[in-house]
């Protein structure tokens, strides 16, 4: 086991740990896993294996395509009825369990607290479920009068060949509202990531561009890949509002289909979770000429950096001044808390295995407190999320990726923003970067161990080797890790705390780290009598 005190001179080389982990595996498994574990060296362009199938029998963190599709883009969108077409389970498990806050205005629709399912029975599997789906859509329309309905296909639906898209078209014509389906069967693709792509395609095809809207502000933007966990979006929205930036639409925390429909009228797209939503940003640029930049509102420094980048894009002096004013004012509050917390937590070690961006972004918050990330990885990322977007052309397209439709997107002559294209060209000349994501590995320390699709056995070994002070993952990992006496912070749900985004969020996170890292609770694990000599018993009772 490495000695934590030596970490000031750099992280220890975990190559031996990697060998130890691989030793346990059958030969073929070891060969595959070896490529998914990289001893990081940011000075070299290293390659990691990602977005490949999970090995059967290996206890993985991953979920499925349906979970990615229903959970990420439309799950947290409040003004649409999402019908899960399939047996009851999938609809039940995705009922309010991904933590998304939403704030409808008085009288606005919010269907998120409802779970809609066709609850397929064996006769539907044998004779087909299309009729039942049609009836379900009619019943949903009759009772709820929604303005849009979407359908999510589960595993058996794809197998028996129900054509949810045909049903959607027919019902759209019959009921006169927007109805569309997703072929997001759980077996498609290798993880939730496939579901994100399918959801992006569907929403782009059926919603984006449906309505136009008069300009409501001088600077109109969309924020993508922000899921409003613990009120993150509310905090970011507060900052935007103060700076005078109009947030047209968030994809997809505190979001509405109504706002997706006019989101193409924005001047800029900001992408936060690159993995889940870069597709829409890409397609919107092709079709409407709206450029996109990568931002990160996790961490106070990152927030300031992203806000400045946004102000630079618009190049407006008044906006720039306002942004600086907000940053300065907010930073005073942030620094005050950071100074209190940092001495108590500095030098601690963190590990994180979550999602497709959090494992990267949260390292910024930890850095601000002097907490080192010794090992990290994503649950459902692709190589570009690790190595940076420049590797995209080198990524081999395999059969599992081919299963997902790649939309043909063409220029929308009427709405295309030539002015934005010109703006982009000019800014690029000045060195401003668009469509850029550096990825996690270049930003991590040398010798940090990067692991894709981490599994239970590897988690055990990592904990044993690094003895981390804090572990970030999800609910399935939480209590396993805590049994080792290591506190776990859920980054999918924030353990029902938060927000952690932007300046106010950073303050919350620092305080949360103080609670988790400076507490004595974990010292209560051992009994007081563990190290005491045993009391010698006697059979006679002494008076």
């Amino acid at each position: 086991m490495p000695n934590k005190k030596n970490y000031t001179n750099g992280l220890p080389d975990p190559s031996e740990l990697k060998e130890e982990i691989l030793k346990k595996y059958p030969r073929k498994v070891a060969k595959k896993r070896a490529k998914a574990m990289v001893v990081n060296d940011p000075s070299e362009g290293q390659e990691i294996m990602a977005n490949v199938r999970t090995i059967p029998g290996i206890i993985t963190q991953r979920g499925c395509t349906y979970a990615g599709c229903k959970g990420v883009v439309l799950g947290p969108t409040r003004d649409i009825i999402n019908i899960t077409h399939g047996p009851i389970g999938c609809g039940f498990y995705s009922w309010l369990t991904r933590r998304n806050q939403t704030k409808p205005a008085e009288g606005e629709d919010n269907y998120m607290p409802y779970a809609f399912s066709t609850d397929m029975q064996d006769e539907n599997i044998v004779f087909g479920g299309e009729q039942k789906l049609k009836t379900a859509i009619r019943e949903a329309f009759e009772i709820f009068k929604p303005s849009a309905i979407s359908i999510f296909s589960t595993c058996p639906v794809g197998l028996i060949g129900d054509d949810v898209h045909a049903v959607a078209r027919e019902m759209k014509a019959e009921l006169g509202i927007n109805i569309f389906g997703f072929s997001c069967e759980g077996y498609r693709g290798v993880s939730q990531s496939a579901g994100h792509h399918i959801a992006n395609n569907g929403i782009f095809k059926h919603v984006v561009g449906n309505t136009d809207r008069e300009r409501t502000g001088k600077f109109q933007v969309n924020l993508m890949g922000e899921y409003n966990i613990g009120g993150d979006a509310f905090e970011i929205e507060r900052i935007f509002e103060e700076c005078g930036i109009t947030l047209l639409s968030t994809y997809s925390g505190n979001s509405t289909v109504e706002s997706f429909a006019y989101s193409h009228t924005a001047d800029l797209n900001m992408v936060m979770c690159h993995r889940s939503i870069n597709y829409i940003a890409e397609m919107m640029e092709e079709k409407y000429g709206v450029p996109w930049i990568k931002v990160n509102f996790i961490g106070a420094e990152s927030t300031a950096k992203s806000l400045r980048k946004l102000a630079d894009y618009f190049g407006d002096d008044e906006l720039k001044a306002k942004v600086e004013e907000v940053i300065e004012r907010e930073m005073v509050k942030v620094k005050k808390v950071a100074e209190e917390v940092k001495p108590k937590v500095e030098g601690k070690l963190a590990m994180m295995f979550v999602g497709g961006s959090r494992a990267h972004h949260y390292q910024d918050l930890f850095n601000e407190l002097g907490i080192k990330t010794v090992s990290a990885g994503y649950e459902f990322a692709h190589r570009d999320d690790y190595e940076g977007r420049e590797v995209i052309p080198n990524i081999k397209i395999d059969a599992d990726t081919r299963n997902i439709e790649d939309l043909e997107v063409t220029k929308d002559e009427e709405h295309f923003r030539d002015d934005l294209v010109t703006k982009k060209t000019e800014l690029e000349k000045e060195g401003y970067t668009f469509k850029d994501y550096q990825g996690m590995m270049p930003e991590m320390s040398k010798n940090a161990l990067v692991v894709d699709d981490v599994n239970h056995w590897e988690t055990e070994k990592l904990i044993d080797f690094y003895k981390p002070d804090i572990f970030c993952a999800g609910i399935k990992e939480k209590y396993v890790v805590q049994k080792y006496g290591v506190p776990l912070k859920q980054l999918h749900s924030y353990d029902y705390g938060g927000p952690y985004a932007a300046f106010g969020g950073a303050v919350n996170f620092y305080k949360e780290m103080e609670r988790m890292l400076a507490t004595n609770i974990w010292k209560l694990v051992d009994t007081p009598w563990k190290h005491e000599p045993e009391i010698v018993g006697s059979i006679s009772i002494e008076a």
Partner: protein
Amino acid sequence: MILRHTTKEVKERSALTVNPAKTCQPIGAMYAALGVHGCLPHSHGSQGCCSYHRSTLTRHYKEPVMASTSSFTEGSSVFGGQANLLQAIDNIFGIYDPDIIAVHSTCLSETIGDDLGQIVGKAKDDGKIPEGKHVVQASTPSYVGSHVTGYANMVEAFIKYFSFNTNEKIRQVNLLSGWVEPSDMREIKRITEMMNIKSVLFPDTSDVLDTPMTGKYQMYPKGGTTVDEIVSMGNSMKTVAMGEWCSKKAAIMLDNKCKVPFSLTDIPIGLSATDRFVQALSTAGKVSIPDSISEERGRLVDVITDMHQYLYGKRVALWGDPDTLLPLVEFLVDIDMKPVYIVSGTPGKAFEKRMAEVLGEKVPEAKFKNGPQADMFLMHQWIKEEPVDLLIGNTYGKYISRDEGIPFVRMGFPILDRIGHSYFPTVGYSGAIRILEKMLGVLMDRQDATAPEESFELVM
């Protein structure tokens, strides 16, 4: 109003389920398998199923829940899942080293027609199952029954695989526990011990899903029914099976395979069901009921009589699983409450018949339904027509509770937002006192919170 779209008027639905009062088979199979010592549940399908089940069970128990998956992709869905399962079995024994792998199917593997028995047979022939290790399988298609059905199927699968009658009768009683909490399993064992009956409780999730914090993680905790115990169930004197939906199948299997007769009782929730359980135990174990048990019963009746005025005539809406709803509703009727609306998504003909018997003349206005479209949306609509004083069910009731301002007691599965269910039993006589305490707690809190100042009382 969070559920502001719920209409008062009940419209007939034949296809759409809204806010289900059930979930799918595999999660039940996973829970049952966790009640076996040294067992790793395995989900034969795509990753999402396993992930969802682990997440839900973890949130309910706040404990590690381990399970593996066959990780289907499109190819396995076309060519069948045999290769995936064979590889999984190999990897699981090599890496995680369980004593038993309990494989259950999903709607995916069922629809493509994977034959688990054949695949597991092949794994055995190919030498992928090490000496002394086991692979048990159950068919649990999600489009049949509910999570309760999956639980029953996995319990039956274990009995079918392990239990043997070697003609050496053992003076012990089999207890099929039904889908209850680890705390309830502990309580059932305590009651049986009080009666001096040697028993095997199966499944048994105590010491599996309520393990102590020691600073060490154990993938296979000390709890769970052992293989030897399950084997020995074939030689027992009698089986007491708790819950028609959860345990009847396994009881019949034991009877057919090993000639162990069974008596089917309710899960001992409330007074009458516990009475019947204790009597069934006494008959099965051929022992008389000790005074200590009668005293526990007496304490329960004492509490009921003391508190009757606060309970009498209160209207209650309930949702959940048939095996827990039936005895619970009977208990409410016993104490003069009025369970007026009851839904259970779990199908089964016996439900309506038995509910009618329990509610019959005492609560003629009661509405109850199970099976398709017997969901929480329907129940909420009934409540909107005429309100109730109390809600009892799983966590998802909190939305109705808040919108309608109705006191709410959490019982059933899943409970995602509170603790206690894994630690404090609701079965047996003392469990019934806890149910009373919970109901009285929320009813009196409501009275305190809403009473005009002049009628706000210190003593109740």
